Structure formats: C-alpha cells, structure tokens
C-alpha cells in the first residue's frame, strides 16, 4: 500500500511535469475525463494510436524534406495531418512546432522548415518517451488508477 501510494505520487508528478514543461495541454485532460469503466485504458489507447499514425507521418515528412526542390504544398499537407494528430492527445509543444512549420511552408522558407522539423522531432520523441514511461508506471500503480488525475 505504501509503495502504491508512492507510485501514485510519482505518477502525479510525472504527469504534472508534462504540463509544466509545456508538453501537454488540456486535451490530455479531456482524454482522461473520457476514460471510464467502459474504456479503462482509453488514454493509453488513444496515445498509442496517435504514435502509430504520427510516426508514419514523421517518416513521410522526413523524406519529403530530402527532396531538392521542396514541395511546400505537400509538406504543408503532411504537417497539417501531423498537427491534427498531435492535437488529439494534446501534444502542445509539437503542435506549436507543426504550426510554425506550416507557416514556413507558406512562406516557402525551406531553411525554416528544416530547422523547425528538427525541433519538432526532438520534442516529439521526448514526449513519446515520457508518455511511455508514464503509462508504464501507471500500469504498475494498478489498473484502476491508470492515468487518474490526483484528487
């Protein structure tokens, strides 16, 4: 019991840091609120789906950025999709970067695109890692307590 308490505290602080560091926004809270008995793993499921989709998009964008004349239209389209996906889990930082990326696309600024994409990839990977750790910890804390907001 004691251990569980500790785990839960740790879980809460991990979660809080994700917000504090600007990685997540209120969409993530909404996901948590949607989680109920009918879908006890709802948040994790959504996050998993998101990363499945977005990983593919990251690859696609990466390839598109390697082309010598950049196709900004295409890039913008991909990033639009990526942004939508990031929105689903409330990946705040990544979302902001994808917005920035799209602005560069519109301006035809290839340099800006590349730079922003590097940032984006970094933050994307960071959040992914943190969320994975978070859910892993949550599982340890007990199935019923997964991702519950500290009361």
């Amino acid at each position: 019991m004691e251990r569980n308490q500790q785990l839960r505290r740790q879980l809460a602080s991990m979660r809080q840091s994700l917000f504090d560091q600007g990685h997540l926004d209120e969409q993530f809270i909404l996901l948590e609120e949607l989680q109920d008995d009918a879908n006890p793993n709802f948040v994790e499921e959504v996050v998993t789906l998101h990363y499945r989709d977005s990983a593919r998009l990251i690859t696609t964008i990466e390839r598109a950025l390697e082309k010598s004349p950049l196709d900004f239209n295409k890039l913008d389209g991909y990033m639009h999709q990526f942004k939508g996906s990031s929105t689903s889990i409330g990946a705040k930082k990544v979302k902001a970067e994808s917005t920035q990326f799209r602005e560069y696309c519109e301006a035809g600024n290839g340099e800006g695109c590349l730079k922003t994409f590097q940032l984006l990839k970094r933050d994307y990977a960071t959040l992914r890692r943190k969320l994975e750790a978070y859910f892993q910890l949550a599982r340890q804390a007990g199935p019923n307590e997964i991702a519950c907001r500290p009361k």
Partner: protein
Amino acid sequence: MENGFSSPRNDTFNPAGLRVLVVDDDLAWLKILEKMLKKCSYEVTTCGLARDALSLLRERKDGYDIVISDVNMPDMDGFKLLEHVGLEMDLPVIMMSVDGETSRVMKGVQHGACDYLLKPIRMKELRNIWQHVFRKKIHEVRDIENIEGFESIHMTRSGSDQSVDGPLLTGEDLTSVRKRKDAENRHDDRDCGDASSTKKARVVWSIDLHQKFVKAVNQIGFDKVGPKKILDLMNVPWLTRENVASHLQKYRLYLTRLQKDELKTSVGGIKQKDSPSKDSAASFGIQNSITVHHHNDVSNGGYRFSGSNSVVQNVDAKSLEGDVKGIDTIPVTGHKRVLTVDIPNSHKARCSQIGFNGSFVPGHSDVNFTSFDSAIPTQPWSEVSETQFQHEHKPLRLENDFTQLPLPGPRHHIQVDCIQSGPSASSKPSVVDKDNLKPFDCTYKSNYPNAIPIGSAVDTFPVQTTSPIVNHQPFEPIARTTSSMKSQGLNLSCIPDLEAAQRNINWGVGSSLTSLDEDLQLCWLQGDCFAMNLGLQDINFSEYNDPALNSEVPFHLYDTMRFDYEHYYDPTECPIIDQGLFIA
C-alpha cells in the same frame, strides 16, 4: 422565424440516440470522437475512409442522422464527401479540422457544412450537434416540396435550359427553342407517356459521374452553365442532356438550400428590392424557394410583379392553408413573414452562390411563365378556352413577344397570380400535407387553373369573384377566374403546391407543345391543365372536353385528378425526396 414552421416533429424529436457517422482518417481522433459522442448519448459509427463512409451512407440511406467529417483525408477530400452527402443523402454534415483558416471554413460552409468544428473538439460542441438535425427536420417540409416541385418541373427543363443558353431571356425566337424542346421531350414522352408511369429512366449519379458533372460546371462557370455544355464536357456517351439538366437542377437546388440556410436570418430586407411587390414576394417565399426565385427573376426582368396585390392576397390564402394543415398556432401573417424571409434568401443565395442557379431557375420560370404571359397578353387563354387548343399554340408564340414586351398592368397581375399560386403551393405545403392529403392535389389543380384563368380572364371575369372565395380575401382575384372552381373547393385551392404551380406553368408550355407533338411535358402539363380545367371546364375550358382534344390527350382530361395523385404518390418521387436530391 423557423418557429413558424413548427412541425409535428418538434415534440417528438429526441437528441438522444442520434445516429452519427464520424469520418476521419486520424484513428486517434476517431476513437476520441466516438467516445465523446457516446457520452452524449449518441449512436456512433466510425469510419476511417471517406469512401467507406460514402458506401455506408449509400447502403443505409436512412441509417444516419448526421455526419461529422474531417476536412483532410487522403482518399477523398472532405469537401467532396460533404458534397456527396449533401447531394445524395441530404444529411447535415459537420466539418472538422485543426485548421481554422477563414477560407477553409468558408469553403466548408459553401459546400454545405452545417457547422465547422476546430480540433481539439470539446464535449460542449458535440452535445449540441443534434440541433442541426432538428433544424433540418424543421426545414424538411419545405425542402421536400422544393424537390417535388423540381420533379414536376423536370419536364419543363428543356425550356429552361434554353433560357440558360440565352434565347428566352434575350427574347430570341422561341419557335426554334420550341422545336428543340420538342425534339428533346419526345423521348421523354415515350418514357412517361403513360400517365400512370411517371417514372423516367433514372440515371444513377455515381461519385465519378457526379465529379465529372461538378468539374464541368466549375469549368464552364456557374453563370454560364447549361446542360448542353456540361454534357459536352462530361463526355459520357450514354448520358442525355435531359439527365444532365435534371441533375443540374437538383444541384442548384442543393446549393440554394445551403445558401438559404445561411442567409435566412439576414436577408429579411432584400426581398423588397427584388420584387416591386414585396408582399407578393414574401408570400412566395413561403413556398418553394425555387419558385420564389423564379418569381424574383421575373420581377427583375421587370415584367411580372406589378400586380402584387392580388398575389399577396393569394399568399395569405396559402398561409391560411398552411395553418389549416397543421400550424394552427401560427397566425397567417406570421407565415407570410417567414415566407418572405425565405424568398429573399433563396434568391440571394442564387446570386451569391454562383449565379448559375439564378440563371437556370429563371430559365424554368421564364419558360413557364412566358407561356403564361404570352397567353395572357394576347389573352389567348380566354380564346382558347372558348375555342380550342390551337389557340393555345398561339399563346406560345406570343410568348416570344411577351418576353420582349412588358405586359400591361392587368396582365401583370394575372401573371403574378399564377406565379404566386405556383410558388405558394410549392413552398408552404408541407410534404406531409401532400402525401396525406390527396384532396390538396386536386386543390392545387383547381388553384392553378384559377390563377391561369385569371390571367386570361382578368378582364373578363373580374366580377365573378364573389362567393367562391371561401376564406381569404386574397383569393378574390383568383376567385374571379376561379369562381367556377369554387365548387371544387376553394380552401384546397388555396393550398399551394409547387407541383401544381409548376404544372400549371408547364401547362402553358404544354399546350403549345401539344400542338407540336405530345411530349412528356405535355402529358404532365396537360394533366395539370386538365386538372385545372376540371375546375374551369364549366367556364372557359369546356372545349377541352372536346372529343377531338380528348382523343389527343384523353387520359389527361379524364385522369387528371388521378394522374396528379399518381405523381405525388409516385414511389419514385417520394423516395427521392426522402433520400435526397440526387438520387435521380
């Protein structure tokens, strides 16, 4: 203002259990939306591909109440899907996107989205989506009527098409137009020649076909669009100009409705501009938007609306009818207002929308009306009634003249009446009414005939007004002509039906056509006319009964009433209405 239309469904509508189809290629969002919608007590179906969504929708046309779709999807642009859903299923569609760019939102709305949600979507936004379904239901009556009207108008479309091409409006020689029309109609005639089988061979507008169509329309430009041009561009061998014309009409209607929905509130004042006779316009508004458009267009032309008074009255009568039908609580005046609003909207919509609606519709109206007009100016109808069909032919020719020349005041009035009656019928009468009340149909006919007679008879019959006017002053003018009709049921006559109106309109054309050859239109028209005649027979049209005429169009005369019924109840038509515009 929609309250005025309070439908019986108001009480029974229940947001819970709303059947929502969610389309998004983003699986995470799909999952979230599903969950959110379920929390709203909606029944949710999810779909990751737009194409799948379309086939789902097509499989079960009545399986969903509303569609929520992402804008960007790899297999099909969300706007395309939106278009298809709007055209084929006539379901409310909510678009969603992370992109809140004004132009995107505008595009969504232009394509018919009833709402545009930005991701991340919140529960409170979804909780309210039932309102779109509800709103649709409220408007459904009107829409259905519109559609029905179109169905009946189809026959006339050849004329309208030509107008689009330019001839009618510009005052070109009508005879050539007529010939073309006849030629075109002939094959229709075969299909529909049998009064009992109104069905035409229907073209299934598949996605591809529709896309070709839309592409062609876009290529040509909305103001210049015409069935022939579209047909040429589409390059689909088996497709006929008629098919395209019909589809184009529905497409316009669809676009119009979209616009109408948006503009309703704001347009209030425009109507006045459009037609000299505001009141009349307003009254029109109640009825079909389409009809209204026609009217407006006409008025713009400058010919017809001068005689607003009588029209207005008619409207009142119509509104009254509407009340009788089921809007007991709403005062007639209220109806008028409502109607008025609608009209302007529709009108506007056309103009703003893409112009092409306006042009096209006008064509229909023009053609139809012109025939009327022509008849009126020369007063051929009165003659015709007295004499024979041949006279009717003359009227058609006169039409040409008519288009060019403004009609005298009295004529205008008459025309107006006719027009109004037409529109009124179409607009207000709720579908339900039509379906439920066969008598109404009869009424329509009677009304229309009345209106027409008015045109011809205005001068001659004015005094007759008298008793026939059952309830409404407005009808007095009509009553004059109608007096004979009275017996049939003035009240009913009040009930406006687009079909009736249209038919009436067609009627004018039809008569002309009859002389040339029997066409489907003729059948329809004749049927209508005859219906009208039924009322009028006593007075003017006794001649119609003339054996010779009968031989030509026998069933029309005798079967008129029945004929109409069939039309209304024709299963093919009804389903169309229910399912959406584009089934045909």
